[in-house]
């Protein structure tokens, strides 16, 4: 035995452990406290400017090499389309990563809203994917890797905006289809997405997310009465990178007015935290039960049920042996 005694060894281990644990303040990042990559980009969508020309849909179709549409992109009759017995307007699907819908509030001109992936700061799709197919890039885009996708479609369940679409028409290679902020072709190089570039009314303003918040609040302030005092996506669901300014309450243009400020993952974190607890506690707990259930001779006690007759001719004797 070397010069170290067991007592000294144990003492040293405890001291080392304590030192590591207490070594300096650890930054505890609670969920929903991720304020985003500092220079990430975003888009501010101004619903008072959009005129429903659908040039953004055309630009996206071209940029992302999507299939030909059913109707021309300057055909405004699509705004009259409804689905499911008149309850639903158009939504994104495998051939359209963005759509514009029209809303006709009482006593004012129609309002048009562009729908696309909102590129959330803490995306639900990313949190729910068990093959890590989604990535939130530092530029702000939520992109998708179809080569690992198994097709479980949990991301579609999770997205609070019902954005991801699935290419059900493909028998052997179906994947998720959604707006990727033109990451591969533009955003990676610092360029604005195709829809922003084409918009004749500059309804879409591209810039750093933190600058867009300043611009948005400045617009609200310098045009009193034009907008409701809210940038939708500033805090909602942990913050999104595509945000909206609206002249009327957001539920009147198809948004959920109270989705909460928590990212979707915060609803799941409590369960995820239980998992290691069960893994740690159950073994000892149930082994303990088993040991308690055995009587003192070390045999399992099976003679103790009260008053029920046994099956005829068959004793339950796990020791084997003769009857």
């Amino acid at each position, binding site marked *: 035995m070397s010069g170290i005694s067991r007592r000294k060894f144990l003492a040293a281990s405890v001291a080392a452990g304590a030192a590591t644990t207490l070594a300096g303040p650890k930054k505890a990042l609670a969920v929903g406290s991720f304020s985003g990559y500092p220079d990430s980009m975003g888009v501010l969508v101004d619903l008072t400017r959009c005129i429903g020309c659908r040039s953004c849909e055309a630009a996206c179709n071209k940029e992302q090499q999507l299939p030909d549409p059913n109707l021309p992109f300057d055909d405004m009759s699509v705004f009259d389309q409804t689905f499911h017995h008149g309850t*639903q307007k158009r939504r*994104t*699907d495998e051939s359209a990563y963005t759509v514009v819908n029209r809303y006709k509030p009482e006593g004012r001109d129609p309002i048009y809203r562009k729908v696309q992936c909102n590129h959330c700061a803490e995306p*639900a799709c990313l949190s*729910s*994917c*068990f*093959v*890590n*197919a989604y990535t939130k890039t530092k530029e702000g885009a939520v992109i998708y890797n179809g080569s*690992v996708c*198994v097709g479980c*479609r*949990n991301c*579609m*369940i*999770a997205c*609070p905006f*019902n954005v*991801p679409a*699935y290419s*059900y*028409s*493909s*028998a*052997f*290679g*179906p994947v998720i289809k959604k707006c990727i902020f033109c990451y591969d072709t533009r955003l990676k190089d610092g360029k604005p997405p195709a829809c922003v570039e084409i918009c004749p009314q500059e309804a879409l303003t591209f810039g750093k997310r933190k600058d867009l918040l300043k611009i948005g609040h400045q617009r609200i302030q310098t045009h009193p009465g034009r907008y409701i005092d809210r940038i939708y996506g500033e805090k909602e669901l942990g913050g999104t990178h595509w945000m909206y300014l609206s002249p009327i309450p957001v539920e009147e243009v198809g948004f959920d007015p109270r989705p909460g400020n928590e990212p979707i*993952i915060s*609803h*799941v974190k409590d*369960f*995820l935290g*239980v*998992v290691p607890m*069960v*893994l740690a506690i*159950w*073994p000892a707990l*149930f*082994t303990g*039960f*088993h040991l308690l*259930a055995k009587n003192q001779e070390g045999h*399992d*006690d*099976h003679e103790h*049920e009260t008053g*029920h*007759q*046994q*099956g*005829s*001719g*068959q004793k*339950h004797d*796990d020791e*084997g042996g*003769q*009857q």
Partner: protein
Amino acid sequence: MKSLVELGVKPVDSLINEKNDKRWSIMDKLLLGLSPGQYLGQALRNPFNWILGIIFAIGLPLIVYRFIFGLGAVTHASNDYPWGLFLGFGLFCMVPLSASGFMLGTTVEIFGRHDFHPIERLALLNGLLGYFFAVIYLMIDLGQPWRLPYPMFWSFGPAAVLFLVAWHVATYLSVQIAEVSVAFFEWMDWLGGKRFIRRITIGLTVSGIILSTLHQGALGALFNYAPGKVHPLWYSASFQWIHFFVSAIPAGLCMVIVVSTIIKKTMAWRCDDGFLDSLDRCTLGLAKGASMGLITYLVIKFIGVAHDNEWAYLATGWGAWFLFEMAVGVLLPLVLFAYAIRHQLASLARWGAVFTVFGIVLNRLNTALITFNWKLYQEIPHIFEFIIAVTVFAIYITTYRFILYRLPILYSWKEQPQEALAPEAVKAAPINTTPSAANAVYRKID
């Protein structure tokens, strides 16, 4: 088979053919000791097989069609309702109903309640087949099912609840295969394998409890990803996983009661007295356990309502539907079980089990399909989805029956008597001995 048995035909239940003292071959064991002609004859005379035949004639080509033409060809290809019946029924309903494996394993092996031993193997088989076919349903539902191993080996997303489900179901299937393999090893006379499994049974059972707790709960936690989409009465921000886990307990126990009832009514010829004579007692015992689970579930569901202050929803249409599910699926079985246990009425307990199974299926379908997207339109799955779901369930029943006919699940396997025992007793035993006398001769290993 029932009529054949009445005529004196004895299906294979031991290693040795009593008539010629030779070991049964694999073919004999598969055909239950009948000749191929006899076996085919009894199969064709069985009306249930005609129904299965019709289902397979329509459904099997449809399943092939799904794989050739994709999901869009057999579903509504909905982007708002990505999960349909394959997951809503095949996964979310079958998994809790298969919780019997860990329940009876725990009861018998951990808590030492060997009085439930006669029904233990049936419960383990029920668990194994339920999970296995849940995976089959999953393979039909996945967009690229050949990529099923991806979350296991290729690309990990460990923060996702589904990652946990994937790993646990895969691991738990292995555990259950091991537990059911005891019966298989007996049947194949591979006693080394059997002894090995017996040695690790406690470890397997504890693993089974851990895995089951977590993935039964995880299936509930999947809906925590969509807090706004499931109706509040079926969604609990804090307790969703607990609700799913606790309800799985009566689900598994009652599924065993239901299956054993069907067996008693349709396959009694395959069961030995040990099974049949203890069935009523076991049924009542399972009913007691299920009652504990059900009353707990009832309370925690209403705690959930109170916690999120959802009382006002009870006065709506959805509220009425919720109360119906609670009344028929939880309260009614509780009443039936209470009366049945008090008065030792196994048949009444069986009705309670039927309503419990109904209630579990309804709860899972409500959560996954019916009240999902309650603020949007209601989606009815495509007729092809219904047909495929029924077909896979028919395959499940057929597989279940196939195994129950053969493996020593409902009967005890009679081993070769040892030389040390009185070999003359073997020759002296008449061919058509009564079961109890025959048991006196043979050594049983459970």
